[in-house]
């Protein structure tokens, strides 16, 4: 009965490779997010989708491309991986929040990406 799930949990890869992280939520939410947590535990939003529409796109290299095939899934594809991409990536979801901004975000378990 996992609410927000991510795969894989760990991802170790070489510089220059392309990789994807998948996220699924079964909470019936229509907004999903990707966050990056760096080595100092600082969390920063990367993207947000509402009903498959991109609504938040922070200053993120265009090597990062989110894809939302439906409102229950938000995948993150990363091209040409760099050392600095090493981090923990968290997916989250919430109810539709464009106006109020007050809905709790539910986080997935995270994907630890290590680029060698």
């Amino acid at each position: 009965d996992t609410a927000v799930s991510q795969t894989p949990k760990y991802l170790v890869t070489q510089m220059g490779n392309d990789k994807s992280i998948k996220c699924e939520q079964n909470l019936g939410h229509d907004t999903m997010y990707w966050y990056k947590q760096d080595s100092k535990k600082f969390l920063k939003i990367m993207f947000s989708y509402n009903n498959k529409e991109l609504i938040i796109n922070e200053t993120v290299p265009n090597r990062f491309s989110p894809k939302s095939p439906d409102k229950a899934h938000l995948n993150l594809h990363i091209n040409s991986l760099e050392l600095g991409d090493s981090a923990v990536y968290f997916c989250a979801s919430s109810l539709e929040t464009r106006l109020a901004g007050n809905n709790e975000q539910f986080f997935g378990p995270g994907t630890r990406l290590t680029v060698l």
Partner: protein
Amino acid sequence: AQSVSQHNHHVILSEAASLELGCNYSYGGTVNLFWYVQYPGQHLQLLLKYFSGDPLVKGIKGFEAEFIKSKFSFNLRKPSVQWSDTAEYFCAVSPVPGGGNKLTFGTGTQLKVEL
């Protein structure tokens, strides 16, 4: 744009000690306020949130926080900590209205509770 400051980066307490973690935010308008906790190796979980009304909010596991608008603060408190409270604590804000529920997090406070 909003920003969040958590001044205590590392806190070490003995069991049964009282806890107060500071959180200050910077934003010109109304915000919603949150405290999240991340236990070792786990995902973030919501401890409590403030949207409106009583500025003293109670959350899970005996935590509470007080919103002081004049000080732009939302400090987290617990009267008596337990070893199991060892975790990373994050304060976060989202603007009202709009903003797409964009959460801006503070840098986190690592709490270690010793037996």
